[in-house]
């Protein structure tokens, strides 16, 4: 007895065989290779993403390190500046002290020189006075009225001083 609707089990089996061949063939020829490629690309981009994340983390770490170093450097600069300032002040003070000492030395020398000059001048003037006195005495004693000579001498001395 034939099946209704022209259903033929043999042809259904042939269709099954055809579909089985198609499923297997398309799986091995197309579906699997394309999926493998897509998975490979996903893996590639995942790796890239991971590398980018790693680099980002590394960059953050380096940034933190540099920030830390920068902060250390600022402190170091501050200390160096303080040290330099201290050294400068010390140097200035030393120079001031030296200048002071030198000034004192110069002043003391100047004082000594002045004293010596004064003494010399005093001595010289005494010598002059003595010599004048001697000269006057000699003249008085030898030639003229001593009073007139004295007067002449005195007038001449005034002229000499005015010159």
């Amino acid at each position, binding site marked *: 007895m034939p099946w209704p*609707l*022209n*259903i*033929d089990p*043999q*042809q*259904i*089996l*042939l*269709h*099954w065989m*055809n*579909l089985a*061949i*198609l*499923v297997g*063939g*398309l*799986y091995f*020829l*197309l*579906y*699997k*290779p*394309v*999926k493998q*490629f*897509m998975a490979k*690309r996903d893996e*590639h*981009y995942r790796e890239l993403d991971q590398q980018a994340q790693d680099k980002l983390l590394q960059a953050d770490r380096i940034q933190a390190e540099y920030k830390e170093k920068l902060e250390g450097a600022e402190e170091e600069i501050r200390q160096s500046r303080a040290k330099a300032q201290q050294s400068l002040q010390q140097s200035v003070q030393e120079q001031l002290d030296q200048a002071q000492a030198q000034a004192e030395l110069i002043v003391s020398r100047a004082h000594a020189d002045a004293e010596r000059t004064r003494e010399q001048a005093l001595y010289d003037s005494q010598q002059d006075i003595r010599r004048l006195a001697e000269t006057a005495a000699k003249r008085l004693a030898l030639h003229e009225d001593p009073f007139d000579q004295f007067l002449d001498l005195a007038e001449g001395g005034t002229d000499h001083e005015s010159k």
Partner: protein
Amino acid sequence: MNQHKKGLVVWIGIVLLLLAGALLAGPGDRVETVQETMRDAVLHNVNRISLLGLKEVNPGLISAFLVTIILLIAAALIRIFAVPRFRYIPGKLQLLLEQAVGLFDNMARGASPHRFRFVGAYIFAAGAFIFVGTLFELLGIQVVTVGGHPITLPAPLSDVNAAIALGTLSYLVILSGGVAANGVKGVGKTLKEFSLPISMSFRLFGALLSGLLVTELVYYYVNLSFVLPVVVGVLFTLLHAVIQTYVLTMLTSMYYGEVSEPSPPKPKKKKQASSPAEHA
């Protein structure tokens, strides 16, 4: 501007000429009546084709074999020439292939998250078969029947045997998913949906057959062959190729996901300690 006008006049002239030809030609010598044509389109029991001299088969089976051959040759060519040239930034063909594979793979993953590898491959092949098989009728490949009449090969699934084969095979795939995931329980789960092979088979058959009947009807009357086949033959075919592909693959992956879902372990019944009063 003049060229455009000339072109328009030529086009209208050709259209009118074809219309006049269609109207004046009239029906040719009919080999069979419209009733016989419709009946044969449904049953395929008149115009049969010899399968390599071994057996007389429905033209749908020949169509199915041809569709498989076309698909496998295309797949082999793609495998040999296109796949090795795939790049991380895809070209047009690569994008199309990845979209096709990704579509069915994602459908399988979405509908059957526990087991999706096998069902993904199956619905990819089934989808390709339905889509290409439905569009196959547009090629209008002519063959000679055992009776000596030339006929155009129909879509494979307009043959009830092909529809039953695909429906039952899909059911077997669903059953295999149930068995693989849940053993005997999976068989039970699958057998609960005993109407599934019938519904899937005849849904496919009905959908494809309705399209075929309308097309047959249109082509039977030559006066209807002006403009109308463009809509009926091409657009409808394209539309239900997409719809039927989506429906069968979605149903298969959905039921596969349902039966392959692992059953939750039954909570163990704790033995209640009997009260002293009961002992008494």
